[in-house]
């Protein structure tokens, strides 16, 4: 599934034109991106939580040259799926 497929389901489910659907879906993702960029987490009930976490600087190694380098402090985004989503993935547990 790509963004085009998400736009398609918005187009089918809501009375939007294709252009409106594309624009609206874009706004949803852009809003999420700027919220996360500001460091704020997003909790989507029934889907999961997107959380920005800080990582301390640590010492790493270039695996090719085994040269020691410092990996700088950084912020990363993690996703924790909700129980509802995890359950939805395991409904047909017989065919796993």
């Amino acid at each position, binding site marked *: *599934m*790509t*963004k085009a*497929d*998400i736009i398609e*389901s*918005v187009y089918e*489910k*809501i009375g939007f034109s294709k252009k409106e659907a594309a*624009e*609206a*879906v874009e*706004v*949803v*993702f852009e*809003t*999420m*991106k*700027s*919220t*996360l*960029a*500001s*460091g*704020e*987490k*997003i*909790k*989507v*009930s*029934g*889907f*999961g939580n*997107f959380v*920005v976490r800080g990582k301390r600087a640590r010492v790493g190694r270039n695996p090719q040259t085994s040269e020691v380098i410092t990996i700088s402090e*950084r*912020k*990363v*985004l*993690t*996703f924790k*799926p909700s129980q509802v*989503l*995890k359950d*939805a*993935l*395991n*409904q047909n*547990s017989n065919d*796993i």
Partner: protein
Amino acid sequence: MTKSDLINEVAEQLPELPRKQVELLVNTVFGSMSDALAGGDRIEVRGFGSFHVRQRAARVGRNPKTGEEVQVAATRVPFFRVGKELRERVNRG
């Protein structure tokens, strides 16, 4: 930010749409993504990230309280990988 905060923010950006429509929009976006993952499909949203489903094999677990062995069934677990654009924006802060 909760889902209803997200709906409010999106509604502000799209003032021509009634709030009910925006609610339906946001729910449809996440609903279609859940359905895709439930069907085992992978999702890729450029600039945001991708979601995929990993299989976890059945294993023998143990009840930590009683020490009793229990069979844990195979499960499917969703995973998210952040896209390049968002990863950089989050890190820049």
